[in-house]
């Protein structure tokens, strides 16, 4: 509502001399200022709405304040030093950052074909009656709590990997740096696989909405030119939605970066950098989960705050980037909010 020349809300509450005994019909001429309800409502809602910005500001503030001793002490090299020694008071987060990126990348490698496959299948190829059930089931994956994934990872996935997957992998590819070393179970590989399963539903859901937002005439034009069904999808529909699909993938990345429970239960929690996926590793989120409440000394605690800060900043940037890409395809519809 803009300011009107005659807007009652901007003029003071001066009541003129009332008309002589106004009838109920003529009430509207003399009464004013029944705006109490409106004002109260707006104030209440605004107060509630301010909680979120307040939350974010205090969150950021206490992350920075808490991390300050570590930031002062270690500076930028914190990000690329590998030594993590609580007793000696030396902290370098490189292994966790490496592990976070490596596990997420590995997860994407596995999840993206699966998720895109689901999205393409559901929007283009699956018979209509199959659509709802499959979409429903894939969504169920998103409803499983992280800790349940961890439980499953420890007692089902890791033994399975140990018995049926790693031996052939090592036999075939053990000479490469990616599959060297002894496999103890808890490893980057286990973490990556669990993460992959966890992010498939998010990437799939958003990709599906992106593909649905592609105008039908794109596909029809391709078919009209003699393309096969697959060619129409791959060369006309997918490229059109490319930005959005990349956005969906990056959204999945954003989720993978922040996943804590399932990862910390299967990844090994070791401050170590290794190219081999068979080795234990660490992520920032897992480190916080393990060490925050048992921090040895103030510097250790500050280092954990700093890890939290780095994690926060990275996920915010990645998510913002993802949203930008998705928004460009879907133009402000509610796409992507499902991924929440």
């Amino acid at each position, binding site marked *: 509502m803009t300011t009107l020349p005659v807007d009652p809300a901007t003029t003071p509450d001066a009541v003129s001399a009332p008309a002589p005994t106004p009838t109920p019909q003529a009430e509207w001429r003399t009464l004013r200022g029944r705006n109490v309800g409106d004002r109260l409502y707006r104030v209440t*809602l605004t107060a509630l709405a301010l909680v979120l*910005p307040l939350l974010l500001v205090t*969150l950021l503030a206490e992350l920075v304040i808490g991390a300050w001793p570590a930031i002062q002490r270690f500076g930028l090299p914190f990000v690329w030093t590998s030594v993590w020694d609580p007793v000696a008071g030396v902290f370098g987060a490189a292994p966790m950052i490496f592990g976070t990126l490596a596990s997420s990348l590995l997860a994407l490698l596995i999840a993206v074909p699966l998720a895109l496959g689901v999205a393409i299948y559901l929007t283009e190829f699956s018979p209509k009656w199959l659509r709802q059930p499959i979409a429903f089931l894939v969504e169920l994956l998103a409803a499983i709590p992280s800790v349940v994934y961890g439980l*499953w990872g420890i007692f089902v996935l890791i033994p399975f990997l140990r018995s049926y997957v790693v031996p052939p992998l090592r036999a075939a590819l053990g000479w490469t740096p990616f599959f060297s070393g002894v496999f103890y179970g808890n490893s980057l590989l286990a973490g990556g696989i669990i993460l992959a399963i966890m992010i498939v539903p998010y990437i799939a859901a958003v990709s599906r909405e992106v593909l649905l937002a592609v105008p039908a005439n794109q596909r029809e034009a391709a078919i009209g030119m003699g393309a096969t069904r697959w060619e129409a999808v791959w060369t006309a529909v997918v490229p059109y939605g490319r930005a959005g699909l990349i956005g969906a993938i990056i959204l999945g990345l954003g989720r993978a970066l922040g996943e804590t429970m399932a990862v910390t239960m299967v990844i090994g929690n070791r401050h170590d950098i290794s190219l081999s996926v068979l080795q234990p590793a660490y992520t920032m*989120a897992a480190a916080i989960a393990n060490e*925050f409440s048992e921090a040895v000394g103030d510097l250790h605690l500050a280092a954990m705050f700093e890890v939290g800060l780095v994690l926060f900043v990275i996920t915010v940037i990645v998510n913002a980037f993802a949203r930008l890409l998705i928004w460009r395809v879907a133009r402000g519809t509610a796409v992507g909010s499902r991924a929440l």
Partner: protein
Amino acid sequence: MSGRSVRRHVTSGLMTSLVAVLSFTAVFALVLILADLIAKGASSLDWDFFTKNPVPAGQSGGGVANAIVGTGIIVGLAALIGLPVGVGTGLYLAEYGSGRLGWTVRFVADVLNGTPSIVIGIFAWTWLVRPMHGYSALAGSVALAALMIPMIARTTEEMVRLVPHSLREAALALGYPRWRTSLRVVARTALAGIVTGCLVGIARIAGETAPLIFTALGNLNFTTNITQPMQTLPHEIYEYAQGPFEEWHRLAWASALVLMSLVLLLGVTARWAIRQRHGAAR
């Protein structure tokens, strides 16, 4: 048909099959996990499981009553805090949210929605655990509420925006003041969707562990005191899964089944109710 044409059709057929296979693989993963949950957990679901408290480590028997009650209390308290703020924020965004503050709140909600839940745990630790010099269920509830609010704010806004503008105009033309239009007409029409969004939010946080690790922590004993640490199902699963005792593992599976059922019941049904309404409205 030329050779090239045949090849294209074969490729098309192959790729179609490939995406189908990929889809079924994803579904298969789900089925596998659910099957494992049932297989390994169902047998432990007896009366003791639900009513008894944990026994000293290593002994058999006992149950997870403290965790079940704890989840109820902590999630309930989180909902008590988070629902009004979340729905209120959503109403604000739908009613007054076209200005700069609205844009800011929306942006903040999106940022917070993408924040790892463990970072929210740090937040609650700093503001509640540290000053109170101890872990508490209250801190856990606040952390979960903080997680919940941006989620619910966005779904509420979305649902309210679905209400046709003409309905709001009809109410205003009738002489409804703005606040009454917003509450008694618009929000009331969107109520089913709003409630669904709230249920989804509750389901999400019921399964969260990370924010509880250094707020509510866990507790081997039964307690309903919110200023004390309290056990919850997710946290109990986390502890027991990593413990050395077979007994603990057994309990962890059963708890996971219970938690999963709870989350499923709340969350997915609610989500599909939204879909139906979306479909009906279109």
